[in-house]
């Protein structure tokens, strides 16, 4: 039989995909969306220049605009290089190389790349960042490795984008004239610190004078509900839990939200069981939890808890959890260790989901808002 088992699997797969993709193809064309986010282009100030400013503007261009103040000569080379760098033509590229020799050795570049790789940024983003950095270095004619580091910091900061709104959406939504509690759903894979984060979050919210209800929808792990309840009781917060292990987590979550609504609570925080993103059944369960909650009140935030030690798999986690539960923010935990958590750069770039909170230690109040500059300095080992 074992001989045929193989045949059997193979046939199944081929048939399923074959039949499936027949239906997929037409659908695909509709469903495709352009998700190709790329790095921000190099400085854009040049774009404001008049379009006719070719190489000719060195002498003659000024005649047309009497009031225009001529650009300082030093900047012209930069602009020329910049234009060459963007032209994309092979000639332009060669001219650029001739005009601006790379002053840094390959070793310097390797070192910079390794810094990024060591922070778990991933090869793709690291290469792209490096590429744009190289272009910038050429354009600006930078020679010092230290100056390159500063440029790198700028580039990274631009990717992390400190201006992004990273506050938690805690406004209470109004549904059919009724003010519902703001519902926070906390999701993630096993062992990233979801329950601890929920506990800490409850403390922060209580400190801000908000009333809180916790929902222990982790009915799987032994003693998870106890753990959450202990956190809650410390700050006098009610924990809605099931009286037995293995209850339907969606039901517990629903009860928590309903209790919150009935008590006119400000925020309901629902803790879920850790689940690996490749377990289809468990992800469906999560989908159910979020569906069921939305019956009672809309989800204000879905927080994905990512462990800072997580490597490239973090991207996969973020993707799958976003698909299933619509993640709106990331909590980066265990950032107090040696791990840098660079994967969130890739995640934010790809999915546009910002890091909202960071976990900095084991103390009960070690949950802090994300600070882009600190984070970037951490990645660069500063």
């Amino acid at each position, binding site marked *: 039989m074992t001989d045929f088992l193989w045949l059997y699997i193979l*046939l199944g*797969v081929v048939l399923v995909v*074959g039949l499936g*993709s027949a239906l*997929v193809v037409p659908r695909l064309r509709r469903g495709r969306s352009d998700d190709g986010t790329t790095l921000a282009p190099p400085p854009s100030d040049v774009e404001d220049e008049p379009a006719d400013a070719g190489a000719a503007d060195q002498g003659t261009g000024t005649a047309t605009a009497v009031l225009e103040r001529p650009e300082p000569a030093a900047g012209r080379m930069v602009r020329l290089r910049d234009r060459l760098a963007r032209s994309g033509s092979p000639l332009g590229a060669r001219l650029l190389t001739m005009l601006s020799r790379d002053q840094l050795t390959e070793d310097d570049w390797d070192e910079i790349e390794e810094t990024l790789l060591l922070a778990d940024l991933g090869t793709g983003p690291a290469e792209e960042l490096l590429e744009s950095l190289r272009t910038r270095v050429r354009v600006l004619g930078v020679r010092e490795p230290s100056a390159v580091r500063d440029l790198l910091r700028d580039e990274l900061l631009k990717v992390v984008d400190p201006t992004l709104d990273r506050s938690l959406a805690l406004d209470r939504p109004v549904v059919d004239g009724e003010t519902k509690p703001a519902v926070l759903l906390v999701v993630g894979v096993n062992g990233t610190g979801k329950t601890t984060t929920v506990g800490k979050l409850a403390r922060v919210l209580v400190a801000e004078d908000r009333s809180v209800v916790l929902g222990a929808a982790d009915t799987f792990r032994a003693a998870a509900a106890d753990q959450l309840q202990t956190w809650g009781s410390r700050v006098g917060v009610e924990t809605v839990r099931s009286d037995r292990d293995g209850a339907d987590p969606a039901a517990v979550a629903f009860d928590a939200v309903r209790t919150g609504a009935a008590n006119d609570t400000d925020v309901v925080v629902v803790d879920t069981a850790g689940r690996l993103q490749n377990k289809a059944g468990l992800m469906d369960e999560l989908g159910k939890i979020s569906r069921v909650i939305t019956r009672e009140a809309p989800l204000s935030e879905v927080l994905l808890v990512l462990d800072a030690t997580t490597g490239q798999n973090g991207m996969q986690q973020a993707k799958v959890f976003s698909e299933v539960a619509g993640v709106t923010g990331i909590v980066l935990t265990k950032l107090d260790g040696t791990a840098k958590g660079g994967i969130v750069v890739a995640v934010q770039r790809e999915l546009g989901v910002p890091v909202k909170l960071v976990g900095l230690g084991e103390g009960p109040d070690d949950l802090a808002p994300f600070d882009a500059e600190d984070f970037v300095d951490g990645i660069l080992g500063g």
Partner: protein
Amino acid sequence: MFNSLSDRLAATFKNLRGRGRLSEADIDATVREIRRALLDADVAVPVVREFTRAVRERALGAEVSAALNPAQQVVKIVNDELVEILGGQTRPLSLAKNPPTVIMLAGLQGAGKTTLAGKLALALKEQGHTPLLVAADLQRPNAVTQLSVVAQRAGVPVFAPHPGNTSAEDTDAVIGDPVGVARDGVGEARAKQHDVVIVDTAGRLGIDQVLMQQAADIRTAIDPDEVLFVIDAMIGQDAVSTASAFAEGVDFTGVVLSKLDGDARGGAALSVAKVTGRPIMFASTGEKLTDFEVFHPDRMASRILDMGDVLTLIEQAEKAFDAEEAEKMAAKVAGGEDFTLSDFLVQMQQMKKLGSMKKMLGMMPGMAQMREQIENFDEREVDRVQALIQSMTPAERDNPKIINGSRRARIARGAGQTTAAVNGLLDRFAQAQKMMRQMSSGGGMPGGGPGGMPGMPGMPGMPGGGKKSRGKQAPKKKVKGKSGNPAKRAQQEREAMQRALGGGGKKPAASGSAFGIGGDQSEAQDVENLELPSDVSKLLGGGR
């Protein structure tokens, strides 16, 4: 975006066709791809550097130039090096001469120590030992409770004199006296004649001086026979610093890779093995207490290189498939009977039990060229097809020819889809059926020439049929050559587990001694036979 190493290598090697040997530049290109694959798998940067250097050196040597197909040789070298590092020093759990054997668990927070304690206890219990769990994690709130629950599920006693942290707080302050608890635990085991003690300790960061000191103190106090370092398979570059901190702090003797059931490629395994030189002994592969197995260096190597993992696929299939049903189906196909839509429905339902279709396809070697299609494959399509078939009457399922216009309309309505979808399904099915017929009569896949692949009609943009058939033929042959393999493998697995847990006392001479060479080597040999063809097939498939 994340295409696999095999894809990229195939692309690299495409230019090599017709040339007998690899030039230095070719090797550079190959090594660059390998480097990237390793980095994407989270292998630590310094380890990658060293590893690629070693591969380069070996590839440049006479070995390759003399070989017939150098491209395959490079991949083989990489695989060999990986297996060597990962499984170089596999050994069983060392049991104490005078019981109790003391096993201590250490690791970062959330690595899975407490769960692992339960799994290890259960596995040992099944081997006829009488383990005792000791709750020395007094730090995390309710860790003691969790361990007690886990112990209860595993049916082993737990020693927990201290309730641990129930004060709701993860504090920086040290709670209770974990050193004392651990020491008393060992004493308790001695008194009650347990022959194995498993000490669960608190999770700690490598840079936490106080807790690392505490772990070192526990180690001194109980003098364990094994210190197992539990590490999460999805850890990134931090693996090296963490592992070296623990190696220094508690001098662990073995590594357990946890959460290997995720889809992380697990490069950390390579980093840890390389940096610390300690063997990886077990893998933890699920949430149930029985999801615990001996570490397979060969499979890990394929996984890190993203080479597909046929063995795991077969194992999963075995677990999920109804053996009787499968046999019936296989007999049917072999007997030349027509494959009907109802057979297909049954099969599809069983396939769904295996989980994500994408994941499964990804595990099959030779599927690399279809990656694009796989990526775009919507899992819900399976449900749609199922809905279509379920809207047919049994007669229609057995004989699709009777489906006329009005039946089509009815089926479409029943499944909530368009008639076009029904037509599409029936068309493809007819072609698939033809393929099945050819296969059962020919005893193999239809011939390799382009155009000779009526069975792949559903693959838009399939770059030529020949490639495909080759990709498919190889794995089939492979299994045939090793028929009965899954059963044998399961047997081997049991034996390996027994050996690893030090339970192989009945036949100690051959396998129990010298680093478990006996059985493991034969397995390693199998791997070589097994693994290479898949690589070869891939290279062939991609290079054509």
